[in-house]
């Protein structure tokens, strides 16, 4: 609470953004291979279907024959115009591609972060109130262990057990194909059923983070004099815990929620591939596999923007939540 978050200005965010898109430009180009070796290849195979003239022609078409710095300048110029380029593999605007998939990913990410925050904070509060009891100890060690397991491993385990073994959930995809839904509700149910396991996989790994944060802040807050004041007033335990105490713990938690979107996005990329979920993560895997530079870059730019906006929002909200930060 007393630690002041360093609050960045808008200008600093611009500089960070420029640094990131620069890295974003160079990293794919440092990978071995190029788009045209893979353009017509099947996954896992490595033979070329293009003649060297074809490749030259294609490179010229996509501007890849120019020196790197010229490519870079035109990339930035286009980016500022809102043009993310044209996917070499999908033969489509990158922006259109990303936008068609992003809703799947974002809903997964946002839902998982909010859900893990809610569960984590609730359990953390309970744990802090009953600190050093066996309940606290079980919660503590259990959640710490869970938070150390990467989300894709949890995803795999869940996939094998709940989907493949128990057949409670569909194995893959975002919704059932070739089905006429009798009502809108049926469709939503189908989408939720598909989203459940990926969502859980992403949520479970994040609970520990919020649990620890909430538990630690609540422990120090519950020792504060104003909690005694509240008890002295004869208020109910529920009000003291979830109003007096939690309100003081909320600012860092809300900040953390926004900061978590970045990490959750990374997790989603992997989990989507486990469940073959039609989000940006799977799109990216395709992009990387085919060395589809514009696509990879485009996805990165969108993700970067999302994370930066979230960080900025975290700062802005922090100021609002704590009357002492002015």
């Amino acid at each position: 609470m007393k630690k002041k978050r360093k609050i960045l200005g808008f200008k600093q965010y611009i500089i960070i953004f420029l640094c990131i898109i620069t890295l974003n430009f160079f990293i794919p180009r440092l990978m071995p291979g190029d788009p045209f070796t893979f353009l017509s290849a099947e996954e896992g195979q490595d033979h070329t279907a293009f003649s060297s003239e074809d490749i030259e022609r294609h490179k010229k078409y996509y501007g890849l024959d120019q020196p790197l710095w010229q490519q870079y300048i035109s990339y930035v110029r286009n980016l500022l115009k809102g043009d993310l380029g044209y996917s070499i593999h999908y033969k489509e605007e990158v922006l259109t591609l990303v936008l068609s998939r992003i809703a799947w990913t974002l809903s997964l990410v946002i839902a998982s972060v909010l859900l893990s925050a809610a569960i984590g904070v609730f359990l953390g509060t309970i744990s802090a109130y009953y600190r050093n009891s066996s309940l606290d100890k079980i919660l503590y060690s259990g959640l710490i262990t869970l938070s150390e397991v990467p989300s894709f491993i949890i995803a795999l385990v869940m996939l094998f057990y709940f989907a493949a073994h128990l057949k409670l959930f569909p194995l893959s995809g975002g919704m059932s194909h070739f089905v006429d839904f009798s009502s809108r509700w049926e469709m939503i149910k189908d989408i939720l059923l598909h989203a459940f396991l990926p969502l859980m996989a992403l949520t479970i790994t994040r609970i520990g983070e919020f649990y620890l944060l909430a538990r630690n802040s609540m422990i120090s807050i519950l020792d504060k004099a104003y909690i005694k004041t509240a008890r002295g007033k004869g208020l109910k335990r529920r009000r003291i815990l979830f109003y007096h105490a939690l309100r003081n713990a909320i600012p860092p938690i809300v900040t953390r929620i926004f900061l978590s979107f970045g990490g959750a996005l990374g997790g989603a990329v992997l989990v989507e591939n486990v469940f073959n979920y039609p989000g940006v993560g799977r799109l990216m895997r395709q992009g990387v596999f085919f060395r589809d530079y514009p696509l990879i870059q485009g996805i990165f730019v969108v993700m970067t923007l999302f994370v930066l906006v979230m960080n900025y929002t975290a700062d802005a909200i922090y100021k609002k939540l704590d009357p002492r930060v002015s």
Partner: protein
Amino acid sequence: MIKKALLEVKNLEVDYPYGTEKITAVREVSFTIEEGNVLGIIGESGSGKTSIALALMGLHDKAVETNGEILYNDEYLHTLSEKALNKYRWRDIAIVFQNHLDVLNPVMTIREQILEAIKKHLNLGKKEMDKKIKELLKMVHLEEKWCHAYPHQLSGGMRQKVLIAMSLACDPKLLIVDEPTTALDAISKEEILQLLEGLHKNKKFAMLLISHDMYVIQRLSNKIMVMYEGRVLEEGVTKDVLENPMHVYTRGLLDASLDINPYQDLWGIPEGNKDEETAGCIFQERCYQKKESCREKIPELQYVSLERKVACNRGGIITLLEGRHIHKTYGDGRNPIIACNNCSIKVRSGEIVALIGQSGSGKTTLATILSGLLEEDGGEVLFDEKSVLGNNFTSRKKGIQIIFQDPFSATNGGFTVEEIVKEPLDILKSDTKEEKNRMVKKALEEVQLPITKDFLQRKCSSLSGGQRQRLAIARGLVMEPKLLIADEISSMLDPSTKANVLRLLKGLQNKFGFAMLYITHDLALARKISNKVYIMYQGNIIEEGSACEVFEKPQSDYGKRLLGV
């Protein structure tokens, strides 16, 4: 009129966990607060005052163990569940917590925090609640605009007012006030005291007032309870206790209070060394008048007079020296000069008593009789309840020592420094040679004289007046006296030497806790150092009382003339 008891506490005990052990913060504390009365609890930090307050409201953490009975208005509060207790909290017993930034919730407005208590306990409509909040703020002289402020936007004084307003939101019958004026400047402090005084007068709630500030207790309470390390050492009517403390600790607290003793030098109670745990009296390592038995026996809080209780194995501060009806006449039958006429005087342990009066009033005669060096014609002198006859107390350790006005005639110029100090020990013959040398050096060190071999062998005639007076004091100290009679010891010294010698003496007195009878005609000095004052005039003691009383409001005509009041 006997008021109805509102709160009765019996044998309260509070234990804090400390690793596998526990620390007892409060033990065997019992008290009663009647409707509309104010009980003040005073004591040094860590004496358990706040622990009592929290125990009364059941606000201790779960790990803290509280035992004893708390009876409020025929309801045993200590038997109630948290939920049942919530009905009493704030509605019946409210508390003004010690003021610091964290005592109010930092993310809630003042209004919200006052309002929630009202909402919880009083069944009021929205309009009535608004009105109530306005009333409360007005009552503590706080502008209405502050109700939308957050705690960090308030000053310390304003926060204290908010705490008071909040505590009175549900018109409690008992208000606990914990250190209402700490960390406030003098003006805010006075304002808060006046506010509490006024509110108490109007609202007639009973109050448990906790403070380490004697002045606050003096201003607001009718009864007082003095606490030390979780126990009550003295209790009684505030006015009486402050005028005539019966426990060494209480007197120490009073001496350390500038508001009550504006003229005296500031001396705290010396810290004892608590290296060994003893089963006996908790105060014994800091006590001036402890006996061997104090190490074994825990004193009980007992009545020593009608409304006064003291927990001391010796029944409170003992009277060390008492002169009863002393009479002394010089000269023959035809021309009698009455030097002392029916003089009665008392010196309690650890106390500095000044005997003042102009030259020829009989002060020195009385002092010499009290020491046993001069025989009285009538009356008797008792030291520690035994008669003083001849040199029976001056010639032994832990007895009486006297230091005279003129150091040149009191110390033999032909003796060396060492001989002077060692002489009484030589006469006693009770210590070995090494012991004696050690004691001599220690005494010289205490009076800040050098202990080099060269100095020890110097002839007294080569020393200055100040040095010789210190030497005389060292000779007195070597006998570890319980009472030191100092007869005008500073009148022959220059002002700077006088200041040094007196500071030294007062420091030694505070450290060793001996009592002192200080005879002087220097009024300013008497006011500065003494707890009690006797005024002598033409062989009679015409006035006596605490230094404050006598100097502020002398009763006798002569006293008024002498003190120019």
